[in-house]
């Protein structure tokens, strides 16, 4: 059932209860007018009014629960979307960096071929050594870019956790609305990978600086004690 449909049903139920309440009041007034106060009809009316009041309270609780559920779920969906967007940009950035590095390494290998073809020594040996060092640097930078895999897998682990929370909440609501007759949902129980909610490929320099500052303060405190 969609959110708008649930809201509609709750609104209709509350309206119906108000009508019933109003009818009961009229019946009670009629009973007073015709001298039926204190008899069985009066007792019955009082019971029905109590029942109506309790049903109204249940509807109010359902209304509040639905709003809370909707708020939390929407926030989690928003956060999941943001995390997935970050995963997309992180993979794109890592792929671009690796491609750039490989293209530069390829150009350096071409240069090494040219040096070999020139047939001269002395300067060529020195230049070839420098080019080989650049190739190593580029290949190592490509390896470093592969750290995105660890970070994005943590971000995806966080998204999986949020989806599981939403699944549990929807199942609980479904059970509530169907009076416990909802089919048993198949909620995955397998262990999710460990993750950090703050895992990110962005601003690593600033985040390292924060850690360094905290350690520096701690170290300074210890040495001055």
């Amino acid at each position: 059932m969609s959110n708008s449909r649930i809201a509609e049903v709750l609104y209709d139920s509350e309206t119906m209860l108000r009508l019933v309440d109003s009818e009961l009041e009229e019946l009670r007034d009629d009973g007073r007018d015709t001298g039926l106060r204190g008899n069985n009809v009066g007792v019955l009316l009082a019971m029905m009014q109590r029942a109506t009041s309790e049903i109204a309270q249940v509807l109010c609780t359902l209304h509040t629960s639905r709003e809370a559920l909707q708020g939390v779920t929407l926030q989690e969906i928003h956060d999941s979307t943001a995390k997935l967007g970050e995963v997309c940009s992180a993979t794109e950035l890592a792929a671009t960096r690796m491609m750039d590095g490989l293209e530069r390494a390829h150009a350096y290998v071409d240069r090494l071929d040219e040096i070999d073809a020139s047939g001269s020594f002395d300067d060529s040996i020195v230049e070839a050594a420098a080019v080989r060092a650049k190739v190593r640097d580029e290949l190592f930078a490509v390896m470093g870019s592969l750290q995105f895999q660890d970070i994005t897998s943590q971000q995806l682990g966080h998204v999986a956790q949020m989806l599981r929370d939403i699944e549990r909440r929807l199942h609980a609501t479904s059970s509530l609305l169907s009076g416990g007759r909802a089919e048993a949902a198949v909620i995955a129980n397998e262990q999710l990978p460990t993750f950090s909610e703050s895992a990110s490929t962005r601003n690593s320099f600033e985040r390292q600086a924060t850690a360094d500052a905290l350690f520096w303060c701690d170290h300074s405190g210890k040495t001055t004690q």
Partner: protein
Amino acid sequence: MRFLVVDDSATMRRIVVNSLQRVGFSDVVEASDGAEALEKIATVDFVITDWNMPKVSGAELTRAIRSCDETKSMPLIMVTARSVRDDILTAMEAGVDSYVVKPFTPQVLREKIDAVLATRAA
């Protein structure tokens, strides 16, 4: 000097091992979680550990190392994607000597290793 690299991600272990080799440390053993690290701790001189791992986390591993007389002075660096202030403070309280935020470069790792060794030597 023999290093122990602890990370549940095989890719990250290879990156850390290669980074160490790149900056001149070639004697490295590996562990895929804190429990395996504790089995190998007696054979190494320096620990580099991730935080988020199954069974025994990096923070728990650090506390275990610091609580044992034989290993309490072991140099230890945490290399992790966790970078919020509270996480860093928790790692400090657990007893890490230094903290490297992922993604990192071999140069940053080398700086932290040198700083930890210099502090120990002082």
